């Protein structure tokens, strides 16, 4: 076990740091994406309430 820890110790540390950074970065991006979708949904719903003809195709 001790051998496993000491072998390539710094590579293990650097890769762990990179893994944590990547996880937080991707997590942040996912949250942003979700918020954006929510925002878009909200605005389109509000617009539809305010103007029921919004987003409806004109009838020929």
């Amino acid at each position: 076990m001790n051998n496993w820890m000491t072998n390539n110790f710094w590579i293990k540390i650097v890769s762990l740091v990179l893994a944590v950074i990547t996880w937080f970065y991707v997590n942040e991006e996912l949250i942003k994406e979700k918020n954006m979708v929510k925002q878009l949904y909200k605005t389109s719903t509000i617009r539809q309430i305010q103007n029921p003809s919004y987003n409806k195709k004109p009838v020929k």
Partner: protein
Amino acid sequence: MTDYLSLAKILIEIGILWFVYYGILLFARGTRGVYILRGVILITLIFVITRQLGFDRINWIFTKIFALSILAFLIIFQQEIRRGLANIGQRRWSRFFLKESEIISEITTTCFLLSKKKIGALIAIEREMRLENYIESGIEIDAKMNSELLITIFMPNTPLHDGGIIVAGERIAASGCLFPLTQNPKVLTTLGTRHRAALGLSEETDAIVVVVSEETGGVSVAIGGRLTHDLDRESLERVLSNLYRPDKKDRK
């Protein structure tokens, strides 16, 4: 309960990322890719820091450079990436089925036969760190390990006898390889080029390097920049079996 589950998910995700990064760094360590990888890591870190500090313009520039550097990495190192992907399917897993004692026995037999005849030899055994750079400096052999072949390679006045042999896994990867000479001023001036090369390689990598002296016939082992002189057969076998697979004790 849900909290524990989400925490476990996060830990597993980070664990997977850690494993992938570790594999990439370990693979790149022995190749030319390590320099560009350092650059990519540096750019990533600057990118993260500028993002956190809210430097939008700097962040924009680094985002562009980051995207370009990944593309450049893929184009420049396509050969290494291809080789690495091929190795995932071949080498790593074959290690579990390796007849370790046979390989050690072949190397020991070779060293002591050459020692008797006072023929010089330099054998590097690859461990976790890849020796691709050094394999490229020699002549690729990729042959199954056997002592007859090793002895033949080191016979004087043959084209392959100069330089060192690299043993990777259960195969003789290359011969006539050039190893870096040690720059350590504390190293005895009485040591020849072969011993200096063994020390140099062991300083730069985690390889085990076995040397047979042409003058005395003594067998030495270099590990981590330290040279152990004049080993007998039993000691060499013991050293090799202890160090060849460092995870051996854990798996018992």
